[in-house]
């Protein structure tokens, strides 16, 4: 393309020179004084020749940047690749140079675009997700809709193939990436894509894109395919969040129940031990009391048997002597008597007290 243009330029330039020459030549033929028209043209011709030399000079060398390789064509035919540095070529558009950045890692974004302007202003990378919905919306194997954003990183491995095997290799890379990603995502079910499938999807997509590039033989080497945001469609996202919340809630409910269980079971076990211990305590108390009481009884019985009558009376009287003063009231009953006869205590105070108590009691 560029070659053709330069040829045309050349022909125009030469044509122009000839046209300039034409009319003046005619003048000289018809003019009275010969020689002078040519003399007049001399600076123009000189300037023209100088122009040609300058053009040739400037178009006979070129520089190639470190990350680039240059493809050199002679009369449109590729004759080789030159390395970075200063290089020379045949001028006048006979040799043409196309620089290709082979060492640079290039990137295509799908579903979003890095916002270059924003990055420049505050040093942070911003992304614009909006405006590319068709690029990232796709169908999963279970026929749900999913929003997948990804990046393809690639390098131009072979500049000659890159330039001459395909007309628009980058557009093709873009198209094929979209096609492949949709195939890979469509071959899995949605929840798989959202969760565990990411790594496999990236790997499979890279593999498949690369093999397409090899088939087209376009010199592009795909380095990686990286999945970015993989999310359900915007409208469905709250429902997905709800599922996550519900899962949390389920765990929480179960944990609460477990907590209650853990709280009450050991306590109940402790209480059980306490009840048993209390029972054991009661048991030993009961047995000991029995032992104590019976040994006392046995002792008394032994003595009683030595002098039963006396001991019996003594015990009886001793007890009553001890008990009667404490009793609130004592009545004596006789056979045939209807009302019980109160036994008046001789101590007034006591009697008064007893009477008061009786009233209170009633």
């Amino acid at each position, binding site marked *: *393309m560029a070659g053709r243009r330069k*040829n045309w330029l*050349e*022909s125009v330039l*030469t044509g122009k020179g000839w046209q300039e*020459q034409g009319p003046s*030549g005619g003048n000289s033929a018809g003019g009275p004084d010969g020689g002078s028209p040519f003399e007049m043209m001399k600076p123009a011709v000189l300037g023209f020749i100088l122009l040609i030399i300058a053009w040739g000079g400037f178009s006979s060398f070129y520089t190639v940047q470190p990350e680039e390789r240059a493809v050199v*064509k002679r009369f*449109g*035919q590729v004759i080789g690749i030159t390395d970075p540095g200063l290089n020379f070529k045949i001028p006048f558009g006979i040799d043409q140079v196309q620089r290709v950045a082979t060492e640079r890692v290039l990137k295509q974004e799908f579903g979003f675009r890095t916002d270059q302007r924003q990055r420049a202003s505050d040093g942070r990378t911003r992304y614009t997700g909006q405006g590319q919905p*068709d690029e990232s*919306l*796709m169908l999963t194997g*279970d026929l749900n*809709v999913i929003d997948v954003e990804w990046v393809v990183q690639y390098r131009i491995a072979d500049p000659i193939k890159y*330039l001459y095997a395909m*007309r628009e290799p980058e557009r*093709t890379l873009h*198209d*094929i990436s*979209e*096609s492949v990603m*949709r195939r890979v995502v*469509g071959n899995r079910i949605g*929840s798989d894509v959202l969760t565990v499938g990411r790594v496999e999807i990236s790997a499979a997509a890279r593999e498949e894109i690369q093999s397409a590039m090899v088939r*087209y033989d376009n010199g592009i080497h795909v380095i990686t395919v990286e999945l970015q945001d993989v999310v359900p469609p915007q*409208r*469905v996202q709250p*429902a997905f969040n*709800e*599922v996550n*919340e*519900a899962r949390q*809630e389920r765990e*929480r*409910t*179960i944990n609460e*129940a477990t907590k209650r269980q853990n709280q*009450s*079971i050991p306590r109940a*076990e402790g209480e059980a031990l306490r*009840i*048993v211990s209390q*029972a054991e305590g*009661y*048991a030993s108390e*009961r*047995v000991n009391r*029995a032992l104590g009481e019976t*040994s006392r*009884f046995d002792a008394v*019985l032994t003595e009683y048997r030595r002098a*039963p009558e006396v001991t019996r009376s003594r*015990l009886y009287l001793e007890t009553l002597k001890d008990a009667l003063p404490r*009793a609130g009231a004592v*009545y004596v*009953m006789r056979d045939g008597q209807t009302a019980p006869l109160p036994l008046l205590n001789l101590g007034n105070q006591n009697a008064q*007290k*007893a009477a008061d*108590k009786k009233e209170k009691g009633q």
Partner: protein
Amino acid sequence: MNKLLIAAVALLVIVFVGINAATVIDQSEQGIVVQFGEPVGEVITEPGLHWKTPFIQEVRRFDKRLLAWDGDVSQIPTLGREFVVVDTTARWRITDALQFLRSVRDETGARTRLDDIIDSVVRDIVSGTDLEEIVRSADWQVDIDALPEEEVSIDQADLKKPKKGRAKLEAEMLAAASQQMPDLGIELVDVRIKRINYIDSVRTQVENRMIAERQSIAERFRSEGQGRSQEILGEMDRKLRRIRSEADRKAQEIIGKADAEATRIYGESYGKDPEFYAFFETLASYKAIDENTTLLLDADSDFYRYLQSTRGR
């Protein structure tokens, strides 16, 4: 002087004619020499400098490289009557430049023909196929056991392997479209489905379905939580009752044994003289007398008898 002028003019004419006769074919091109509209000679595929008769011949150039074709987005109903938006892309190249020149003249003409042919092929194949056939591939495989827990409700019948799958359908598209390509001097390298999606109204429905699906899953999770919780609480209740009743049983056993032991001890001891025991125990009960107690003494009782006799003295 005039000689010089003539020489200069002649030189310029030669240069002009030479330039017109020279033809540079680029690495990316192929060319056909055309004389008065009629192709002359072989197609030039070799890049470099070539010559033609100046002025009366011209060169038509065609790209030799692989070219991209991107069709219009079209709405097509599938076999299952879902309307989908399909965007296809294809790679092609001009293999027979002469035929190409005769049949379509240039790339614009070729693209128009490609639009027609590929669009109709895609339409035919998509409308005769179920959506899942286009979305899934031949190596489709879903491990039901490895599904995440929320997806266990998926109907297994919905996950059947496609009969053909995407790659095969694309191959069919390529084969069908390629049949007409030799007439155009074109070789189709591949036809691919770039994008396939629901039309907006269907997408809304699908999204609604997805929302409902998620909500039911969420509901299931919640009730699972409740159920599990109830189960745990029930288990807890069972354990509590067991623990408590066992403790009670043990306690009663212990108490019973102790009571029995005590009874045996009392029995052994008191059995030696039951009558004295009764007397002794009765006396012991008097010790509980206090000021709230009212005593009724029979006049014949021993105690009163001694009182009387004391009085009688």
